[in-house]
């Protein structure tokens, strides 16, 4: 107890020296020293602690020494050029290292989801751009119907019918947009990005307001058509006609287009952050060319991380790992204590091919492990 109160830290440098000596017995004392100088400077850089007090030098001097040491080291050991990876290289790497797939899985799936969201929003944006709100105002129609010559009535009737058709078409498109936004929201929920969620929610609200407002106009325009049809007196000041709110429709449509743009920008940010994270994962084998991470390669990556046929996963800790969509074969080696649950959660989808069902998740969330 009392021993714990007074902390007598050992020397980081000595620890490092011992570990380097054990791991690299052939390394000579000078190289060990240089390594430790570099390491201590890095530690200082990272933590702000000063395990370098023993060097009795200012930080700047130490860094200078380290830099000199690094230059010496570099001239003695020229660096290997860094490989530039295409997504295919990453997939090939994953193929050789199936346990890496479980580590890369969440990132890759999120990335593919983000691309799906962007694609959906592009479609929504395109659809929103072609929604054409019929231009003629219904109150104007009502006015000309009652004040114009009798011969103009037929023409006005035709216009009212056109307006009604235009409104129906606009409404159908808006509903398609609403559905697309819904599916984007489902996809985005796994990305848990607040800006994206807000942008999508705004877009959905605007789409629904537009739908309602178009619906109301449609009903009122229908009333006008029927009045004209049946030869009832049409009075432009009739309150119902005055409520036909074309300006409101336009405002809703503008808001919809704006919030789709906002959501798309947020989705693009998510995509870029995830692409950087994926690139970081594979830095050890080379630098991933992010420009090549397009829709097609995301799909291929998604398939790759889901394909665990024949993989030996006995050493993997599956606690908290989401396995939904993973495909495996009888040759796949699962950790013994997970075997029964995986069997239970999977369905046979082909010749000797199993897939873990939607909603299946390895249970027993471990306090230490955030879901992968």
């Amino acid at each position, binding site marked *: 107890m009392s021993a714990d109160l007074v902390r007598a830290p*050992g020397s*980081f440098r000595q620890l490092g020296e011992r570990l380097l000596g054990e791991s690299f017995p052939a390394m000579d004392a000078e190289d060990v020293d240089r390594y430790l100088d570099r390491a201590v400077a890095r530690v200082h850089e990272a*933590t702000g602690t000063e395990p370098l007090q023993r060097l009795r030098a200012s930080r700047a001097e130490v860094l200078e020494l380290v830099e000199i040491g690094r230059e010496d*080291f570099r001239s003695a050991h020229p660096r290997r050029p860094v490989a530039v990876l295409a997504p295919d290289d990453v997939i090939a790497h994953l193929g050789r290292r199936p346990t890496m797939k479980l580590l890369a899985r969440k990132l890759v799936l999120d990335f593919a989801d983000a691309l799906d969201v962007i694609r959906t929003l592009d479609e929504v944006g395109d659809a929103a751009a072609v929604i054409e709100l019929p231009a003629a105002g219904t109150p104007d129609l009502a006015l000309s119907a009652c004040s114009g010559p009798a011969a103009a009535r037929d023409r006005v009737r035709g216009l009212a019918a056109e307006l009604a058709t235009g409104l129906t078409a606009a409404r159908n498109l808006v509903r398609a947009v609403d559905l697309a936004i819904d599916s984007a929201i489902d996809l985005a929920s796994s990305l848990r990005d607040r800006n994206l969620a807000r942008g999508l929610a705004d877009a959905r609200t605007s789409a629904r307001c537009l739908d309602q407002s178009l619906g109301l106009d449609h009903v009122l325009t229908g009333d006008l058509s029927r009045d004209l049809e049946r030869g009832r007196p049409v009075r432009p000041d009739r309150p119902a006609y005055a409520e036909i709110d074309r300006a409101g429709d336009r405002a809703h449509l503008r808001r919809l287009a704006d919030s789709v743009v906002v959501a798309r920008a947020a989705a693009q940010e998510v995509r870029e952050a995830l692409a950087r*994270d994926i690139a970081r994962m594979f830095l*050890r084998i080379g630098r991933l060319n992010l420009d090549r991470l397009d829709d097609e390669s995301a799909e291929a990556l998604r398939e790759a991380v889901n394909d665990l046929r024949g993989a030996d996963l006995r050493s993997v800790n599956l606690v908290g790992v989401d396995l939904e969509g993973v495909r495996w074969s009888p040759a796949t080696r699962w950790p013994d204590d997970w075997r029964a649950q995986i069997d239970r959660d999977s369905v046979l989808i082909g010749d000797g091919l199993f897939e873990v069902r939607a909603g299946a998740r390895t249970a027993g969330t471990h306090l230490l492990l955030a879901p992968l």
Partner: protein
Amino acid sequence: MSEQETASPRMTRLRVTIPPLKDLVYEQCGYAVPATFACGFVDLHLDDWERAERDWENFVALVLDTDAVHPRASGGVAIRQAVEAAAAFLVDDELWPWCPMCKLDADDRTGGDR
């Protein structure tokens, strides 16, 4: 790894809070660790993920008891300094990746990656 090294009282108490490697993969993980670190370390131990995790924890636990951690730091701050120091110690321009806990031969590793 000898028995007394892993049995420090400070460590047994704090061990539960050492972040697992998979938490260090993300850029925004809350620890300033070099980009190549977590994946490189897991990759290095590839056929034995649990071992990588255990070696990592044991190594952080050793660093925790050195002057790489500020003498007055405790709890999460001490853990963070130890985590960052441990990763910074390993990720060296010339030797990375290596694991001080399993003493793998550097040449075997780089050869096996092709």
